[in-house]
């Protein structure tokens, strides 16, 4: 099938897609509603997907509502992200056994079936590509990460209903994905709901995607289907409320490290680290070595957060001892020094950090506040003073 061709299927076509992927040995991971949130779990049919579910997001606020809408993808993003598939929260790195003075190291082999991500959002794809630069694009690539990424099948679901916390348009990461080879996905779906039952415009992004698409059925996309997709994306972009000045934020934060706004946000921030957990690009992790009773040593790798006091520990104590310095580190890394370290922004505008912050800190508002008084420093010496 021609890579530039697009076609339209109905919901049954999506079920055929899931079947085709399962038959090829993929674990199909997609969105389901569990415990009041849209989370990623194994899905076997479109019955598992969040039909009729809508999310309402605001700073520190996330609610799901249900109605009889036949749409499967009329929600924005949940707290999880594809990060968990490629960079698990905790994993065994090696195991060492010793006998006498001989230490033998063994590494676990990664036997998990390759993953097919169903319904990845464009901002999430952008997040994966940011992590690719960190884990696969550096001097020392992570071979397990690379293997999982290369073997993964990605089915995008373009966004029609962004949340109020989304700002993908500012970061150039949504609400749709570009086509063509190298786009980073295998298939991209756009849910078209203009008439009755939803139909899905399918665009092909890779040879592998083309091969699987042959089993989906459907009919060639008509000009009005292409137009309908444009309308969905335009409507979504129009609904985006929040903005971030991505062109200037790198320099803005680099030159405002003493801005009084950091004191202000520090008085609200709990240093709980929720933002780092839900962020699709936060990658800080550490290693811990543990011993079992029989003397076997295991090294695990696990997610860490820069909000943790121990994150910056040197032998005399933490370098970033205050919430003030830790919040500043997180935001300046995400929006500014990430560019210096990896050549891109660390932020994809998904808004999760805003939604899942228990005190509702909104990074777009923090950046705007700093920009509004660019160059401000706390006034320490005031003239006048009393005469006593």
């Amino acid at each position, binding site marked *: 099938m021609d890579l530039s061709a697009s076609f339209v299927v109905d919901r049954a076509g999506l079920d055929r897609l899931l079947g085709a992927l399962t038959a090829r040995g993929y674990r199909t991971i997609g969105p389901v509603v569990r415990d009041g949130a849209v989370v990623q779990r194994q899905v076997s049919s479109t019955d598992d997907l969040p039909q009729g579910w809508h999310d309402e997001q605001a700073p520190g606020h996330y609610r799901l509502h249900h109605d009889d809408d036949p749409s499967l993808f009329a929600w924005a993003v949940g707290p999880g992200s594809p990060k968990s598939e490629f960079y698990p929260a905790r994993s065994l*790195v*090696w195991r*060492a056994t*010793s006998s006498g*003075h*001989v*230490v033998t*190291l063994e*590494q676990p*082999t*990664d036997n998990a079936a390759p993953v097919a991500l169903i319904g990845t959002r464009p901002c999430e794809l952008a997040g994966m590509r940011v992590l690719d630069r*960190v*884990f696969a694009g*550096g*001097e*020392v690539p*992570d*071979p*397990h990460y690379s*293997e999982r990424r290369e073997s993964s099948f990605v089915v995008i679901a373009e966004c029609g209903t962004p949340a109020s916390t989304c700002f993908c348009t500012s970061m150039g990461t949504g609400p749709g994905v570009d086509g063509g080879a190298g786009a980073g996905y295998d298939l991209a779906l756009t849910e078209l709901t203009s008439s009755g039952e939803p139909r899905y415009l399918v665009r092909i992004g890779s040879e592998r995607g083309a091969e699987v698409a042959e089993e989906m059925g459907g009919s060639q996309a008509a000009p009005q289907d292409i137009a309908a997709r444009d309308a969905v994306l335009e409507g979504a972009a129009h609904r985006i409320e929040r903005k971030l000045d991505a062109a200037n934020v790198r320099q803005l934060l680099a030159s405002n*490290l003493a801005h009084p706004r950091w004191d202000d946000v520090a008085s609200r921030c709990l240093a709980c680290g929720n933002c780092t957990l839900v962020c699709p690009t936060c*990658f*800080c*992790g*550490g*290693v*811990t*070595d*543990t*011993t079992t009773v029989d*003397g076997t*040593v295991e*090294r695990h*790798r696990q997610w*860490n957060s*820069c909000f943790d006091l121990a*994150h*910056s*520990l*040197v*032998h005399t104590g933490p*370098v*970033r*001892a*205050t919430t*003030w*310095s830790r919040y500043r*580190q997180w935001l*300046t*890394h995400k929006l*500014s*020094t990430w*560019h*210096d*370290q990896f050549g891109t922004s660390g932020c994809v505008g998904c808004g999760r950090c805003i939604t899942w912050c228990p005190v509702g800190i909104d990074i777009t508002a923090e950046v705007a506040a700093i920009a509004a008084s660019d160059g401000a420093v706390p006034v320490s010496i005031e003239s006048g003073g009393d005469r006593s």
Partner: protein
Amino acid sequence: MLLTEVEPLSNPLTPATYRVVATRVETGDVVTLSLEPTSGPNPFLFKPGQFNMLTSFGVGEVAISISSAPGAPGPVEHTVRDVGAITHSLCTAAVGTVVGVRGPFGTDWGVDGLDDKDVVIVAGGIGLAPLRGAISYLVDKPGRTGRVYVLVGAREPDQITFPDDLKRWERDGAVVKVTVDVPDSRWWGAIGVVTTLLPTVDFDPARTVALICGPEIMMRFTVRGLVDLGVPLGAIRVSLERNMQCGIGWCGHCQLGPLLICRDGPVFDYSQALEKLISERER
């Protein structure tokens, strides 16, 4: 990166196994471990200024400077200061203990290109350890036209590390000066912070490269002292330290603003940008 066997999908967080073949107590809480691989090629290839991640099996892994000279025959030396659980177990490791080694990592002092330079080395406390290999390399390298100056600061006389090396370097042509903060009754050397030694040596600031390692306060003041004597900022190199967990740019712990100490450092060319970075509190 050294592994005893090459495996497909080998994880860069897996160390090679090395054996402790000798230990030497330098001062009260500083020990030098000599390590050899349990199997596989030797010598270990590195450049002075780089570090290894040493694993004490069952306790943890820590970044330790390589303190031997590159190309020196024999085992690779690592000088460890006992400041926590992992370093304590390394400092108390008996000969024969197997430890893990990953590395070498990081940028080096760049001693190769300094043949015609006066090299002023300023070391505070344990900061002499990452410089030791560089000094031996420079002192022993034939054909160098520049001089080598070694300025060492320690808290007390019995905390001076590598006293035999200091004497050896002086015998072999380096200018060596040592100062302490708190002398004892037998001390006849200089007293005061190491910056006070700078005006007492006759290096040529126009053709000097300075290598500095020690607590950051000491490095900041030493840089100022060198600049006051006419050494350009860019001719000064410092070794910085932060929380180091992976050494390979994955874990994010060693960040200092835009820099990753494991990848962009630990040795840095000094600059106004770097000075600004290390002057900021809690960065």
